[in-house]
């Protein structure tokens, strides 16, 4: 198959083009059975409704209640009206926590996506063995249980005995770091957590993007090579348009996950020093579980969902539309 890169590819992504053509006239048999798609969706919808949808409604309900431990044991709940929301919105912690969460989330998403995409592209270019090695590294990092990876991180970076401190001291650029404690300043504490989260999330992004890349027909690249297109042009005219839906998906999911990241920060810094690494995830946890104020924790969760929707609305819309061709 030969295509003219100069015209068709620039204006319309090949995937979309193929789908538009193929889907322009839906076959009549599909119209005759309007119930079939619902039947296909039913299992997914039922499971999601039971274990995420209904709890989500419960969460909204709880956020309007005075729901604490006593309510959990006795089932007796009092209404709080908007008190939980007012408490959250008036809290002096709100603005710094949000600023930190957004900034840290951006740093995580950018780091994860840049490295993940780079690795995915690299893997397509590698020989069989080298690719297997990269794949192995990705899966290995992904498979390490959380309890172990956070512990290893503590060991790698612990003052006096940490191997990273030792290596950095050996390299010598930053001076003697053997006594350096990474958790004593907000910046280096964030760096420590950033390294861990990125290390853990790159495998997911890289493997998903790599799977997406394998779907691009090689013939497009061959055609591009014949047309003498440079690597950057090939990337922007073939790879990127093809990859866009999956890239969009992993971006949104990364934003969602990184915005509320909790475990890694909690174990490495507990939100310290002096609360300066306290992000939304930490705040939700300490409110809901340390203070056992599930109502107020619920309010924080609802507020952060609303924020996430606001932040991602444009993108979600485009993502949903990206397949609107049937």
């Amino acid at each position, binding site marked *: 198959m030969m295509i003219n890169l100069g015209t068709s590819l620039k204006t319309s992504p090949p995937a979309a083009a193929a789908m538009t053509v193929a889907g322009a006239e839906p076959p009549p048999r599909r119209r005759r059975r309007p119930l079939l798609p619902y039947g296909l969706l039913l299992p997914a919808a039922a499971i999601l409704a039971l274990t995420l949808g209904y709890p989500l409604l419960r969460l909204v309900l709880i956020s309007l209640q005075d729901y604490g431990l006593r309510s959990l044991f006795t089932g007796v709940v009092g209404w709080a009206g908007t008190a939980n929301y007012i408490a959250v919105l008036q809290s002096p912690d709100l603005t710094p926590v949000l600023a930190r969460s957004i900034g840290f989330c951006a740093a995580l998403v950018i780091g994860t996506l840049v490295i993940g995409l780079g690795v995915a592209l690299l893997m397509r270019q590698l020989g069989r063995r080298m690719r297997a090695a990269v794949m*192995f590294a990705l899966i290995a990092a992904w498979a390490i249980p959380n309890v172990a990876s956070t512990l290893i991180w503590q060991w790698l970076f612990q003052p006096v005995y940490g191997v990273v401190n030792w290596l950095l001291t050996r390299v010598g650029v930053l001076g003697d770091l053997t006594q350096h404690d990474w958790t004593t300043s907000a910046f280096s504490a964030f760096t420590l957590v950033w390294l861990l989260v990125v290390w853990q999330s790159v495998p997911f992004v890289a493997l998903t993007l790599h799977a997406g890349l394998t779907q691009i027909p090689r013939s497009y690249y061959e055609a591009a090579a014949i047309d003498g297109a440079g690597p950057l042009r090939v990337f922007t005219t073939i790879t990127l348009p093809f990859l866009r839906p999956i890239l969009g998906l992993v971006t949104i999911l990364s934003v969602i996950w990184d915005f509320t990241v909790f475990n890694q920060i909690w174990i490495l810094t507990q939100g310290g020093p002096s609360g300066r690494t306290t992000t939304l995830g930490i705040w939700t946890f300490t409110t809901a579980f340390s203070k056992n104020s599930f109502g107020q924790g619920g309010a924080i969760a609802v507020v952060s969902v609303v924020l996430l929707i606001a932040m991602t609305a444009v993108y979600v819309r485009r993502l949903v539309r990206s397949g609107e061709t049937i």
Partner: protein
Amino acid sequence: MRIARNTAATLFCVVWLFPVYWMVNTAFKPYGDILSTTPRFLPFPFTPANFVDAVTKSGFLRDLGNSVLITAAVVAVAIVVAFLAATALTRFRFPGRRGFLIGVLVVQMVPVPALVIPLFLSLKSVHLLNTFLGLGLTYVALVLPFTIWTLRGFLHGIPVELEEAAMVDGAGRGTVIRRILLPLVLPGIVATSVFAFITAWNDFLFAYVVMKDQSGYTLPVWLVSFSTSTGTDYGGLIAASTLFALPVVVFFALVQRRLVEGMTAGAVKG
């Protein structure tokens, strides 16, 4: 160019594998050696004692069995359910489709710590607490959004013409799904099943909260049993973690490579 690429790949592997290597290295050392001011990069003196501690710790086999059962069921159910949903979303147009897609993304946005209590209350009201079914459904729901969206992306990439051509040639629906759709979305299925596997395999919190009785615990609960009020058996914990991660790595490294290699010779070639 080739050298540059291989160098970059090697560098990546070294950086990404270093923590893994450090875990394995530590697991084979007497635990106290972790605290030497000059790090030891090879496990000498070498000892399997940590592994012996780990596998002889009570509950290992019971929790391993539970984990295998739950994880296998979750991966199978999640993939099938998501594949059906993705088919509906890409091959049919019907009211509520966009709403479903957006809804699925939105439920992802709730911070997990905030979901624990509401989820607990929901499972309580349908009497699924302390059952593998309740725990399994929880995991399926946690992975479905990603699975549905990803498979939808992959199904989009496949021209409907292909299926129609096959139907014209006399192939039944089932044949079309098996012979044409499935092979083409295989990379997507592999990627999502890794995701589903690791989510179900690694979860601690839900397994601990949903399963009231000890007999229903999974391996991650066993893993945290190395930490007690009197101190943590770090040597045992790190050896146990190695054992915990190893089968996943080996299995998926093999599966992924074979399937993806097989796929590139597939039908989309143009």
